[in-house]
């Protein structure tokens, strides 16, 4: 039995909408073992992104305890959370979110600016990450010169370049056609199997969820 890399207990998250508080997560508990590939499903607006953001240290729970990669996120300052994200989290977004003014390799290199690696080391690492996603030949291309699937692969290279503990992906195939989506899922599967990355993926798509070892359903603020 692998130790858990994510341990959430009694997590409540409320947002203020005008005067009314809306409870999105309601006393939720979740443990994710190291090295697993899990899918998180649920209706739109059920709080999947909210949960992912809490795990990724982008936001704090209103109540409850959250320990991720050994770090107690609840007690950490904003600065500490930023460092935590830089060190442990690799983000993949639905909308790719590459910086349009940077080439593929520069986008991948971006997270490494926060490390004290030398210029050449950064380049090499970024190049390696692009090789993993099969886009080494496109490294000088700008996002607008790439297809959606290619953009998402660059985004994955950016997510893995600093060797994160966990990869969080929020509907990574949501904007892609079947073929491109399959490429991305194959890639994620490989990252999980070959590189032993823990992956947590939010998805609407049952096909995508099938690839994951575990599928969890979020509804009414609770995991089913």
């Amino acid at each position: 039995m692998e130790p858990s890399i994510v341990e959430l207990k009694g997590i409540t998250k409320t947002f203020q909408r005008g005067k009314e508080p809306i409870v999105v997560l309601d006393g939720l508990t979740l443990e994710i073992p190291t090295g697993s590939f899990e899918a998180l499903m649920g209706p739109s607006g059920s709080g999947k992104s909210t949960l992912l953001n809490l795990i990724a240290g982008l936001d704090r729970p209103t109540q409850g305890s959250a320990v991720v990669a050994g770090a107690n996120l609840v007690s950490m300052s904003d600065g500490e959370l930023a460092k935590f994200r830089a060190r442990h989290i690799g983000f993949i977004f639905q909308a790719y979110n590459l910086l349009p003014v940077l080439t593929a390799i520069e986008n991948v290199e971006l997270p490494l600016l926060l490390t004290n690696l030398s210029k050449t080391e950064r380049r090499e690492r970024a190049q390696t990450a692009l090789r993993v996603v099969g886009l080494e030949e496109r490294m000088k291309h700008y996002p607008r010169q790439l297809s959606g699937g290619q953009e998402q692969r660059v985004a994955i290279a950016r997510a893995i370049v600093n060797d994160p503990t966990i990869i969080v992906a929020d509907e990574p195939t949501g904007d892609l056609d079947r073929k491109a989506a399959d490429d991305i899922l194959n890639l994620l599967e490989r990252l999980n199997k070959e590189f032993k990355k823990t992956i947590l993926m939010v998805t609407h798509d049952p096909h995508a969820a099938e690839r994951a070892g575990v599928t969890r359903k979020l509804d009414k603020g609770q995991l089913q």
Partner: protein
Amino acid sequence: MNLVLIAARNLLRNKMRTVLTILGASVAILAFVMLRTVLSAWSTAADYSAKDRIATRHKVSFVISMPKNYIDQIRLVPGVKQATYMNWFGGKNPNKPEQFFATLAVDPTTIFDVMDEIVLTPADRQHWLEDKKGAVIGDVLAKTLGLKVGDKFTLQGSIYPGDWEFNIDGIYSAKRKSVDRSTFFFHWSYMNDSLPESRKDQIGWITSRIDDPGKGADISAAIDRIFDEKDVQTATMSERAMNLGFMGMISSLLKALDVISIIILLIMMMILGNTIAMGVRERTREYGVLRAIGFSPRDVGTFIVGEAAFIGLLSGVVGLALSVPIVELGLGRWLEENMGAWFPYFRIDAQTYVMGLGLAIGLALVASVIPARRASRLLVTDALRRVA
């Protein structure tokens, strides 16, 4: 690659907007440089006034004249080394009455002892002394009027009506750039002899050189005391004060120029601020991504401020690049040639360059403070939810 590079590249994203912004801001810098140069041209004229010279005028105003014999009494005042007198003649070039240059009726025997910054060959000076209808003119004026030594030239009098004919006996240059090289000097006696009895023997002002600049105030007071009981009283002051007094007439104009230059800078800041704020709003999501990756709010702020600094720098450089040909070669040369009495030396001084560039960058930075703060305070989750 680093954040500064990304900031620079962001400027190329909306090229039209960047170009228009830089153009707008650089025109503001150009206007600022022009106004500063007007102000500094005037104040350098005053700053360059000789420290060892004092000027005596009618107590009421420098446009009212005094009896000529005052010069004899002033020359006797202890501490006065040499004194000379002159009248503002107000002559015009009959062919081009709109041309402006100073025409002064002076005492040829003493004028260049007192105004020692004027350079004239001893031969020309001697020649002029002996020629009652002779004139000595500045080299800049000589060029404008197309005159050389030996030519004849007629001035049209305004304060002293009639056509006055002169022989050009000498062309002077100057030891300092601040000296008006467009003045027309001629014998005071030539003018005086032609005047009706009632207007004879009146002088406009007296300039004296003193042996100790530190005693200027005492000597001035001593001079004014001599004439205290006379019908015509005097006001004696440092040459600088006298020059500033001339400018006093236009001091409200100077203030207006100062205010206008501040307004221009504020407009520039608004142009820059608007462009920066627009860029920041459009890129909110990207800032969210940077933050998610682990960049700090401060990095995001730096990023925006860096972009602003680039725009400011480019605006400043373009603005100054426009200023050099327009102000120095165009306007400046025209003013020096046509209004040399007011602008003997109309050039952008080093301080103005530094100020222009500094203000362009500085105000761009100030303009970026609010967008930068707003962006750095964004919640990452909100920024990421923002639809681009």
